[in-house]
């Protein structure tokens, strides 16, 4: 231990229990032989005593305890933890879990045969007596205002649907003539990026996909299966 170390430790030498016994032995040995450091430590301790004394000199208001107790009595609502017994907390937790489970169960889509039959009836009637007007009416009944092409032969209609593509409802129509089938997606341009048309049809293993411009707002994406093409599904005499 030397003077430099003593000076570094000076602010902490007023607390006996903050340094180890070994450190104190070394400090005491040094102070026994160094008058300057001993004076420093005594001065530091005197300063601490003076500050401590001044720090404690605070007059407590005479009615403080009563004021605190009055305040505590006025705030029973903040004291709810005192009044909720543990069994009630456990019961509340179970109730919450039961409610969440029930909500998850009840909000799943219901498979209802009655609704299903109604839906299939509607499809059958629409496609059996298919016309462009009935198709427009169908999509309107589903809340979808869309384009319905005029040149398709709606007596060949086999299915109508509204599907969700990336959050956008899209009208779909399926046609069949003999073994030839086609599926038509009515794509609203403002919701999708469409390449500059015309583009060559894309061919897959079993189908061909064609993009057809029909208005400023819509394009048709037509999927042909097998050897089919657009002309198979047009109204006779309207093939251009």
């Amino acid at each position, binding site marked *: 231990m030397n003077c430099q170390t003593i000076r570094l430790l000076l602010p902490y030498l007023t607390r006996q229990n903050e340094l180890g016994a070994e450190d104190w032995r070394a400090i005491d040995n040094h102070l026994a032989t*160094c*008058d300057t450091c001993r004076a420093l430590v005594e001065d530091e301790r005197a*300063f601490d005593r*003076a500050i401590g004394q*001044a720090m404690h000199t*605070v007059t407590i208001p005479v009615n*403080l*305890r009563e004021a*605190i107790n009055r305040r505590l009595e006025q705030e029973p609502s903040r004291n709810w*933890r005192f009044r909720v017994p543990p069994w009630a907390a456990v019961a509340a937790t179970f109730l919450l879990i039961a409610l969440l489970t029930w909500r998850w169960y009840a909000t799943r889509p219901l498979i209802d045969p009655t609704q299903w039959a109604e839906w299939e009836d509607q499809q059958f009637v629409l496609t059996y007596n298919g016309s462009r007007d009935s198709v427009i009416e169908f999509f309107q009944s589903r809340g979808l205002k869309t384009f319905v092409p005029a040149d398709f032969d709606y007596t060949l209609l086999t299915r109508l649907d509204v599907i969700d593509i990336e959050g956008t409802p899209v009208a779909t129509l399926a046609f069949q003539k003999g073994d030839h089938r086609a599926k038509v997606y009515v794509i609203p341009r403002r919701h999708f990026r469409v390449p500059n048309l015309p583009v060559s049809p894309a061919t897959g293993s079993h189908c061909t996909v064609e993009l057809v411009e029909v208005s400023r707002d819509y394009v048709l994406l037509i999927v042909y299966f097998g050897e089919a093409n657009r002309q198979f599904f047009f109204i006779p005499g309207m093939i251009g």
Partner: protein
Amino acid sequence: MGEVGRNGTFRRLVDEHYAQLYRYAYRLCGRADVAADLTQETFARAQAQFSQLRDLGRSKSWLFAILRNVYLQQLRVERRQRDVPLELVDLEVARDEETNADEIEPHQLQEALNELPEVFRTPLILFYFEEFSYRDIADQMNIPIGTVMSRLARAKSFLRKRLTRTPRPDDELCR
């Protein structure tokens, strides 16, 4: 423990600690009315959170920590903090009412405390006033123990320069 028992225990905590808490609050904020409000609010919050106190032996530290949080929240709301930047602490020492080290006036001490940033003021008050250990102070302020020691040393140095006539006789090393 039942509600009656808990209430009884809490009332004993009030009796044991309200004076210490008030003194701490007063030294933190420097105003009697604000200190009384801080003390009441501290006990109100403590009563609401009393079930969270697992070790009654730690109740004093717990109450002091709540009081500091209440104080800091009030400071934030009122935007009244007049702290000087830490690096300026050594520079902004006025010596207009200097005294000897053994006769420091409480009001002068409070004026000096008011000039200190809260991060220095709090460990200093806890150190002198309620004799918390460095570890206790570090836990309450959620800072490393080394930071507590460093802030204490700087804060004490500030007080010494601000309050005493004679600087510490350490201007030169003895060996």
